[in-house]
């Protein structure tokens, strides 16, 4: 826990100062998770604000301060899921408006001049983004929370409110799909 239970209790009872302190303590971590979940730096803060807005609205429903972190992660997962679904719809309509040549030109322009390290990071991001696009938004988020964020099955169980076995099955299937996609890409970064 990054804050004392007492601070969460105060925020829950409507203390704006306490709520501010809670947000300040968690915002960087939550923004990081969102950044890796949605892969769109320009929208990270917006989704982050949505998470804390939902927290503000639902804080009175929190049973005990002990479950605060899984609760906050659940809000994060839900907000990221909503964003990804909206984004997919938007992207589909946007891409259908562009010709293939325009898409290629846009990709080339986005490349620009970068250092080799930066180029590798971009490639990593693009590859992971492409692999994760092979699974549904729910599985993408679950897989990212487990494989990238490094959350344990016990933690995921608390966040999702489903038993460990169901999560294992779902993770296994999603991972298999990603592995297959990775194999199809050559199983290498370069």
């Amino acid at each position: 826990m990054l804050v004392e239970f007492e601070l969460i209790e105060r925020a829950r009872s409507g203390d704006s100062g306490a709520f501010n302190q809670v947000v300040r303590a968690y915002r960087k971590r939550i923004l990081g998770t969102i950044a890796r979940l949605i892969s769109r730096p320009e929208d990270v803060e917006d989704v982050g604000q949505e998470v804390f807005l939902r927290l503000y609205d639902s804080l009175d429903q929190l049973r005990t301060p002990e479950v605060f972190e899984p609760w906050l992660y659940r809000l994060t997962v839900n907000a990221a899921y909503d964003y990804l679904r909206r984004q997919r719809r938007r992207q589909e309509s946007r891409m259908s408006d562009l010709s293939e040549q325009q898409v290629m030109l846009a990709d080339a322009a986005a490349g620009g001049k970068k250092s080799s390290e930066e180029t590798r990071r971009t490639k990593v991001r693009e590859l992971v983004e492409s692999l994760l696009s092979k699974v549904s938004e729910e599985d993408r988020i679950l897989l990212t929370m487990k494989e990238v964020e490094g959350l344990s099955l016990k933690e995921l169980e608390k966040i999702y409110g489903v038993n460990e076995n169901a999560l294992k099955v779902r993770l296994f299937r999603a991972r298999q799909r990603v592995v297959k996609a990775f194999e199809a890409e050559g199983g290498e970064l370069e």
Partner: protein
Amino acid sequence: MDRMKRDEQFDGQLDSRLESLFKEYRASIPDPEPSAGFMPGLWRKIETRRTSNLTLFRRWAEVCLGAAVALALLMGAVVIPHYEKLPVYSSASYVDVLEADHPNTYVDILTGDIK
């Protein structure tokens, strides 16, 4: 047999390569520093939500009030006069109606009106 072993080895390698790719992905996107506008923006959104909820409640209350006033006017202008115009079955008192329905023959017999 050799082929199966090779396949298993390949799958294992692919798994570990994927794991390191995920790690690299994690490292390529560090936790971003929130901008200076993060907290003011958040509070603006909270206030907007609060105001819109209040507006929604106010609008709902106005609709209810409007409906209540309209109903009262409708009753005053249409329903009540309509019932007033309906034929009155009896303008007599309760005792008169009872008396008319049950003629008191017993009293008449006693007074000698009925023989």
